[in-house]
């Protein structure tokens, strides 16, 4: 408003342009600051000046290089698993008459709000080669040795995928929700079977969303810290993040760690280029001025096959791990399993009544995550709009800046944040602000990806219509773009909010005594070996996040998850 009434100059100077430019400046500052510092550190010699010796140290040992390859394989495998888990579910829930689809949708959400580290702990209890309940069950029935080993490459890849696949699901489903049935009808009228329609029409239309989500999953998989530490070390599998942690041991070699992080940054660049190549010269517009009807497709008997598959996925991601955690949270001694004399409410009493820290930690987590999510959505929308509609120059660079933070392992990013904001002149260490800044920077890629996919699907004609009729760009954005994308933006908010509540690797470094968050508390508890309390805290955290997400979704818009039936 204030910008619009700035006098005669405002006429020529589009006020939205000013806002966009400011937001992009914030983006440049948030991302360029730590990332450039990282690049600089990697090239800095001990005596000042530039050197490549850090790179020599970082890649001079075969073990270090092996870790990078392992990480690459893990990223690819976990992404593939995620797609396999997510796509049938997303399609089933969004486009078919899959039974109990609302429950499956909630189930995916439950998997999503589970911190990967918490899930990994549950899976150790489930699939530990000797003591895991799955293996014990197998041995009891079939004898011999248990077939599952969580401490292996495949174990790590599966567990990573189990808590990353909801990203693909959410992106794919929101894209599927936008496709009108008429497009599919057109295909079948022209003689295409159901499978051909799926392959030639539906799937290609959601390619941008799936592509973006797959990249996010890949980047999350290669930068994850908690799960590798818990599962990969016992597996004898060296990964980039565990190797990175080694560079932070005494004597700390930040410069070498920075050099070591460069291939991951380069990977992001390559992935973005590949994405561009894949998506170029095709139209993905599925939202236009015309309404379009969306109704579920009857897939006949296949719906039970899909139902069984979806149930299997739920079993792996939610039901079995949750049973493990619930069991431990009500136990006096988790090692004794479920027994009447082992039952207690003491762990919950402990965290609710005896420990002020847990309550403070919950409040901190919700506050920081919500603040970060709100900022992320605003900047993300700006990035998407600016790059898709080419409002500002260098859209490629802006796009890269928005995605780059995801490729830098949290542990490294945390050091950069601490260096950039911890000491004077800002001295933000120990405040909640530094955590919010870190979360915003780290999760911008998610909101930017979500917003970009959404803007891509929006036909520019809608905005052009506003402009032709004399409306300003601001009007086009506030009255057309935002309302049309409201659900996507709300989805992005919840997405970032949830991911922020799960965040561990940066938080562990930046939280101070009064700014601790849940994930750090859970890590602390696992370091102390108190798994009964840890499980209770985990359950409470899941419950609180679920309630907040549900209330938020109900409050802002009607049921963000179940679009139309």
């Amino acid at each position, binding site marked *: 408003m204030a910008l619009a009434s700035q006098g005669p100059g405002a006429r020529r100077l589009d006020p939205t342009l000013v806002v966009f430019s400011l937001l992009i400046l914030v983006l440049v500052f948030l991302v360029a600051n730590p990332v450039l510092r990282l690049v600089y550190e990697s090239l800095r010699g001990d005596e000042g000046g530039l050197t490549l010796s850090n790179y020599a140290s970082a890649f001079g040992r075969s073990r270090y290089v092996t870790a990078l390859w392992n990480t690459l394989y893990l990223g690819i495998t976990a992404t593939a698993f995620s797609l396999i888990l997510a796509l049938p579910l997303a399609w089933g829930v969004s486009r078919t008459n899959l039974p109990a689809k609302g429950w499956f949708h909630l189930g995916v959400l439950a998997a999503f709000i589970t911190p990967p580290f918490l899930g990994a702990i549950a899976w150790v209890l489930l699939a530990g080669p000797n003591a895991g309940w799955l293996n014990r069950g197998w041995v009891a029935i079939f004898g011999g040795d248990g077939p599952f080993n969580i401490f292996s490459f495949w174990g790590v890849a599966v567990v990573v995928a189990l808590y990353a696949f909801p990203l693909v699901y959410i992106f794919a489903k929101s894209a599927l929700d936008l496709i009108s049935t008429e497009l599919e009808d057109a295909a079948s009228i022209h003689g295409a079977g159901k499978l051909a329609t799926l392959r030639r029409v539906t799937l290609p239309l959601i390619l941008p969303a799936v592509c973006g989500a797959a990249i996010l999953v890949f980047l999350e998989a290669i930068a994850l810290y908690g799960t590798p530490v818990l599962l990969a*070390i*016992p597996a004898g599998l060296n990964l980039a993040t565990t190797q990175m942690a080694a560079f932070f041991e*005494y004597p700390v070699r930040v410069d070498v760690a920075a050099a070591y992080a460069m291939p991951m940054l380069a990977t992001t660049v390559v992935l973005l280029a590949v994405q561009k190549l894949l998506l170029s010269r095709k139209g993905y517009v599925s939202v236009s001025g015309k309404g379009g009807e969306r109704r579920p497709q009857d897939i006949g008997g296949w719906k039970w096959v899909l139902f069984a598959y979806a149930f299997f996925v739920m079993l792996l991601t939610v039901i079995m791990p949750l049973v493990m955690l619930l069991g431990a949270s009500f136990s006096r*001694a988790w*090692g*004794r399993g479920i027994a009447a004399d082992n039952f207690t409410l003491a762990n919950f009493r402990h965290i609710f009544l005896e420990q002020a820290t847990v309550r403070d930690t919950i409040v901190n987590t919700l506050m920081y995550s919500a603040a970060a999510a709100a900022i992320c959505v605003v900047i993300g929308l700006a990035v998407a709009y600016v790059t898709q509609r080419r409002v500002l120059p260098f859209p490629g660079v802006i796009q890269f800046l928005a995605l780059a933070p995801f490729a830098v392992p949290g542990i490294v990013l945390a050091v950069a944040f601490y260096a950039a904001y911890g*000491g004077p002149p800002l001295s933000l260490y120990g405040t909640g602000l530094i955590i919010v800044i870190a979360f915003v920077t780290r999760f911008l890629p998610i909101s930017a990806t979500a917003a970009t996919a959404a803007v891509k699907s929006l036909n520019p004609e809608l905005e052009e219509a506003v402009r032709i009729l004399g409306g300003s760009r601001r009007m086009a954005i506030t009255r057309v773009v935002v309302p049309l994308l409201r659900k996507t933006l709300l989805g992005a908010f919840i997405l970032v909010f949830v991911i922020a509540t799960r965040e561990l690797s940066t938080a*562990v*470094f930046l939280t101070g005594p009064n700014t601790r968050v849940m994930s750090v508390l859970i890590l602390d508890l696992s*370091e102390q070996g108190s798994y009964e309390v840890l499980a209770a805290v985990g359950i409470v955290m899941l419950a609180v996040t679920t309630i907040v997400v549900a209330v938020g979704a109900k409050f802002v818009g009607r049921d963000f998850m179940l679009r139309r039936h």
Partner: protein
Amino acid sequence: MGISRRHFNAALGASIALPAFFARAATDEAHLKTLHAAAQKEGELTWYVAHTTSEVAERMSQRFTQRYPGVRVNVVRTTAQVAYQRLNQDMKAGVANCDVFASTDLGHFVDLKQRKALMPYRPQSAALLDKRFQDIDPDAAYNVTGSNLISMLYNTARVPAEKAPRSWKALTDPAWKGQLSVGHPGFSGFVGTWLVQMVELYGEDFIEALAANQPQVGRSIIDTVTTVISGERVASAGPVSLALMQKSRGNPIDVSYVDEGCVLMVLPSAIMANTQRPNAAKLWMEWAVSEDTARISTEEFNSPVLAGFPPREGVRPLAEIKTIQPTVKQIIEGVPELTEVWRDAFGV
């Protein structure tokens, strides 16, 4: 400022000279009163701590303030590596956030002392320590305020007490192949120190033989307790106090005190040279070895470092446990080198 500096130097000189006469004597109450009065003017201190869990650290800070009203403690609890990284960032930025530094990694103290970043101070209460903890640094740049023990732990549901491993050699004994668990020296200072002691006892071949025996390698030494309780592996080299705490809750775990001796971990604390609250920091160092802290230590199933203080039921007093420990020099030189050997042998 000048006066307080001179006063402080005089006090420092006196406190270094005193122990010779006051050895084994109780801490001088007048000295504590003077420190308390001066510390009240400073009002607070910031404690970077890796020794304990957050909860215990908070409890300690509260009890300190109860004992010495008017002196608040800001607890910054992290892992040792993070604490050290943070401290270095502070020093680079020229800010004196930290007053008392309590890492679990001896290397940090040796390094800081070399850089003259520590203020030597010999607390009078140091004379009350068990002999094994006295004079760890001849210049008193850092002093022991806590300890821990590593021994063999075993799952009581899977291994009868008489079959439990009584020697560190079990770790390399093929009879135990695939059944044991250890921590990783690259992720845990405790494991690093323990490994140095193992190599002292059995030579560097110990690491190869251990790797060949396929133990499950956890991140920290705590994981070895978890692994044994779950039954994933039946025995491990792990921390005694946590095992005893878990045992008291009913978890199927117990300690086997090994014949060669349990490995003793020393946990020092130090005052930073650039502290703006030297009196509060000194008061803290005095209090760190006291009945207050010994009591907290027993609550955590530790054997107190305060000589003669009785541990809780089910925990052996230190005096009755055979212990072995590497020297500071051995740890400083050994840990980085042996960690590399370890990583080559285990692949991680």
